[in-house]
């Protein structure tokens, strides 16, 4: 089965890509927005790769 925490993590990372830039950092005059986007994307990527390895170790969770 798909784990709820994986769904929450993905949705959260996606929302962070939209909400913070449009509410807090949109008018920035430094590289902070650029760095923010890279940090969120790379942090989520690390989490996703970790979870991906775990799911594969459990046998692929096929459901088929």
């Amino acid at each position: 089965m798909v784990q709820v925490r994986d769904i929450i993590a993905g949705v959260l990372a996606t929302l962070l890509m939209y909400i913070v830039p449009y509410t807090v950092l949109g008018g920035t005059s430094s590289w902070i927005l650029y760095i923010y986007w890279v940090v969120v994307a790379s942090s989520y990527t690390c989490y996703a790769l970790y979870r991906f390895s775990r799911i594969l170790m459990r046998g692929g969770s096929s459901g088929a």
Partner: protein
Amino acid sequence: MEPRALLGLAVLGLYVVIGTVLAVYARRMGIKSSRDYYVAGYRMGSLLSALTYAATTYSAFMMVGLVGFTYLYGSGALGFELVYFVGTMFLLTILAPRAWRMARERKWISISDMLSDLYSSKLVGGVVAVVFLYALVPYMGAQVVGIATSVKGLLGGGEILGLDSYLFGVLVGGIVLITWVVVAGMWSVALTDALQGVLMILAAAGFLVWILDYTSRNPGLGEVSHTLASRGLLGITSFWKPVVFIGFTVPWFFFAVTNPQVVQRLFIPRDQRALSGMVKWFALFGLSYTVVVTVIGLVARGLTETGYLPSIEDKDMVTPTLLSIAPPLLSALVFTSIAAAAGSTVDSIALTVASSVVTGLYKPFSKKPSEAVEILVGRIIVVVLVLAASVIAIKKIGFIVALSVLSSAILLPLAPPTIYAWLHPEKAERASRAALASIVSGVSIATAAVLEYGVGALVKPLLGLPIPLWVLLVSTLSFILLPRTSSTRHPDHD
């Protein structure tokens, strides 16, 4: 011919020769069945899988379109591209292991094959094959335009062998790509994709080093950074209104499950380790390539703002303008990498669409299907598809150009039925009508938007929401609301 053009022709020629040698070498992998031809017999290693996944995903749009977008509209372009990246990692994490396992258990060789099987409906597979032809042949045409424009840039315009350099690019690109696909199917495509992927990342890295060096020796990196900040280009510019940002990002977020050329690549890794490696290497490639490309676009804008580069209005001209002042060898490498990025997308799509047409439209009507004939028909379809894309690249018909821009939005309606069937394969066959309704309704809305708004449909708001979001909402609701059949076997099941 000028020395710069001669060098460009030499680099391009070397690339074509190496690629062709690799394609021919790929025949050693042994093509005995349609599974060998279309999905490499489910026995590809991690690095090769990752490079073909990355080279297929990232087209000429990155080094031309995204550099231009960043130049014109600032950091928002990075956000748009990274939303795609996060979406892909999200979908791969929760769905790729299932798709990979089911593909080998159920012996899928194409996306039509997959959806026909999951929904127990030949009609679903046939409709999907038609949608791929409709959405992806124009997109292939746009990529051939990228190849021809790069060749023209390499040769500095003018004529070669009595042909206009753009036409020469279309001709050479078409012949090379057909050869690379036809020779050994997925194996030759993957091996040449690997070459293309390595060239793309190396050329991008070289381009970045050069532009940073050029900038530090002229206005200075600090001056460029200060100027970008003072112009508001490091924040969200007025271009990236929420409706525009959402309109751009929604189709791309679902790219990993809607675009058949990447979905099919989930079938090919030989084991779980190779699948894991594929996703890891792709993540590294995608993140690095995106950051490098957007930094180039921002620094280029800084050079313009400080007076070291002319102002450029056309976003597709930013990279060629930069390359015109870059060292000749770097310029030749980057132009060749752009042609490579476009080429790797075209040949992957051609093979994928051919596999879906064979399994979705040819096989169901064939009285005596055989492996050899399926491969032969696929090869003929590849030739026809690349020729059609070449004609589109030459004619540049307005409606088809709009379709190419919106191809990901047109494929968006495939997301609900694909994700549902991967998550609930045991329930999918009762939902075949819902899958058809989802695909037909979504594609119809996308097409109506193209007819009404042309290339602007992606960011056009309708009742306050961008069109791609409407496409996704309507196709999802159609899928959810249509009643399931009571029988476990659909009437058109074979």
